[in-house]
């Protein structure tokens, strides 16, 4: 009501009287047509596909025609034996990579914020793997991890260790991929931690030293709590990345041997490959819900703590 009645007079007034405030509550800075291009792009590329995918997840769909089948896709998806395996694997993968990235990233960040030589150079080296393509990394590590001809097992053999069949032993496959994921992603975590650590005022450390605090105490009582925002960011980013991870797993094991290193995303992709478009769309909806269900409470928890601290 108010906006409707006041719009016209205000516009007219604004032109004649520049001294009046330019913006009022409920009135935007730009005319509506100015929003139109962005709104169109948003609607066609984001809104429509999102709702279309919710719709198609209830259908049997071959890209040209569809049949409404209600919840059948979800029932099918959850009765899929590979899915149960994929679901557990997804959580294992997400937690393992996330924890390792936090721990290693923090330790590396402490190292790289110390007074070592060639610090800038070393800092950039840790970031290099992040810049590589996952597929390329996957292919290279597949060769390195070959049980008989791979460099890793040959190196282990020199020191007398009989290395496992990294990617083809069902007990190792998922962990091997997770290790490569950590190698590739720890650089990003380190950089975030470095930023967190250098923003801690040096007075705290000086004061602690004056009071005779040990380095371990400094780390646990100053660095760790004050770098909490960085920790929260790293946990959330790496957990989201871990839960929806796909490219590295696909490049290295394709979910194999058999189904032993399948994650939700690779199960979904296989349904696409088979032409089960409705079913895989349902899988994507499930993945979306799972990621949301994990990340939203976690992020609320981490951010609340941050405020209290």
């Amino acid at each position: 009501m108010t906006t409707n009645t006041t719009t016209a007079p205000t516009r007219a007034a604004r032109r004649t009287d520049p001294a009046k405030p330019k913006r009022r509550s409920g009135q935007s800075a730009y005319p509506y047509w100015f929003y139109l291009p962005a709104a169109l792009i948003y609607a066609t590329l984001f809104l429509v596909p999102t709702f279309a995918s919710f719709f198609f997840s209830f259908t049997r769909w071959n890209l040209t025609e569809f049949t409404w089948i209600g919840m059948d896709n979800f029932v099918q998806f959850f009765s899929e034996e590979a899915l149960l395996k994929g679901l557990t694997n997804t959580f294992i993968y997400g937690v393992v990579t996330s924890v390792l990235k936090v721990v290693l990233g923090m330790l590396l960040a402490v190292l790289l914020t110390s007074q070592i030589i060639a610090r800038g150079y070393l800092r950039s080296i840790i970031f290099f793997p992040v810049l590589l393509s996952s597929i390329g990394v996957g292919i290279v590590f597949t060769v390195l991890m070959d049980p008989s001809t791979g460099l890793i097992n040959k190196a282990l053999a020199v020191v007398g260790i009989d290395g496992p069949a990294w990617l083809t032993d069902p007990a190792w496959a998922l962990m091997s991929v997770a290790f490569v994921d950590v190698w590739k992603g720890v650089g990003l975590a380190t950089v975030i931690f470095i930023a967190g650590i250098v923003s801690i005022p040096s007075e705290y450390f000086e004061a602690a030293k004056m009071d005779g605090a040990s380095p371990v105490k400094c780390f646990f009582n100053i660095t760790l709590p004050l770098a909490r925002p960085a920790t929260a960011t790293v946990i959330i980013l790496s957990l989201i990345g871990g839960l929806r991870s796909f490219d590295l797993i696909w490049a290295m094991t394709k979910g194999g041997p058999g189904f032993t290193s399948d994650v939700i995303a690779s199960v979904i992709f296989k349904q696409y490959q088979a032409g089960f478009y409705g079913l895989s769309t349902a899988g994507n909806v499930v993945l979306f819900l799972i990621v949301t269900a994990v990340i939203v409470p976690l992020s609320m928890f981490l951010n609340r703590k941050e405020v209290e601290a």
Partner: protein
Amino acid sequence: MIFTPKRRWPAIAGSVTAAALVLTGCSAGGGGNSDAKTITWLVDNTENTITYAEKLAEDFNAANPDIRVEIETRPQGGDGDNIVKTRLATGDMADVFSYNTGSLFQQINPEQNLVPLTGEPYMDNVSDSFKPVVAAGDDVYGVPVGTGSAGAVLYNKKVFEELGLSVPKTWEEFMENSRKIKDSGTAAIIQSYQTTWTSQLFVLGDFANVAAANPTFAEDYTANKVKYATDPAAIKGFEHLEEAYKAGLFNEDFASTTYPQALEKLANGDGAQYPILSFALPELKVSYPDQLNDIGLFPLPGDDPAKNPLTIWLPGGVYLPKSTENVEEAKKFLAFIASTEGCDSQTEAVGANGPYLVEGCDLPDDVPTAVKDMLPFFDDETRNSPALEFLSPVKGPALEQITVEVGSGIRSAKDGAALYDADVTKQAKQLNLPGWN
């Protein structure tokens, strides 16, 4: 001086562009006879296909100077399927096109989209074992292009000779041979699970044995009346795979071996037997030409030595869409493909990797040994059966993962077969097949 390298670039770029213009101008201007009618032929984009397609087009043009055939290509796999379906649906299909036979052929609505070729004189040249896989309703719709193949065991004859082994006719004999080969220090059976599709051969290549034991299996299978897990003949493929794994007959690095590495092992005699599709022969020919004739072929053995049938893969078909305006010219071209001249033209282009399904087409004497081993099975209809995928639209997408698990001892044969049945059910439901929903 310092600047010369930089200055060269524009010059090089300029001359490359000029050369490209000249070349393209040349090919567009070529073609000769301006009265010639042009028909288009859509084929897949594998090198093998393009090579024989161009040769066929050239030879056809030599025999029929007033008709020119222009090759169009499409991707393979799902993308190719979509292109074919879309172009058929929009009436925009090439004058003739190559496409799969069997279950994929049924999915392009032949009765609605294609011109039936049933009464055509050249259909008499087409082998009777090909006609069912391009038939819908009462009509047949395609002529074969390319050669037949087999899902069988390729074996190294030298290893067999050294150990004094003969070709096994039953599974028992096969296992006995394999144990002897293993004891001699050679890998008895090559498996290559890094290339997952290769793991399926124990099951897919065993189908002729299933069909021999139960002639109506394919039909009942499509109608959801028989299952792999419960049919005593069908589950054998899974059981054999499990048995061979448990007996330790595979190459030690089976889990990380790739398909090309497996072919290398076979050619060099590091492994003796490799259950695989005979599509491997052209690849062996390119990579190991000297050892090609050391390689022989026998069917995956079953229980009955008297039957011992071969599971065969039929070639693709060439079809005539209803949308074409050049029916007469296109039919002439189909007649050429289904003639001995057509086979000769393909052999000249890519060599013969299996028998043609056109009557009267002889293979040259210098065909690889493994192809010679295949021929008797193709000649006698009671000694072969097309693979299940040519007889039924039902095929689950996860078979290769399941057979990797069974062949690696992760899952039992019984479990694997049951899991495959569940996979198949899912696919049949997606296709809306009657009897499954």
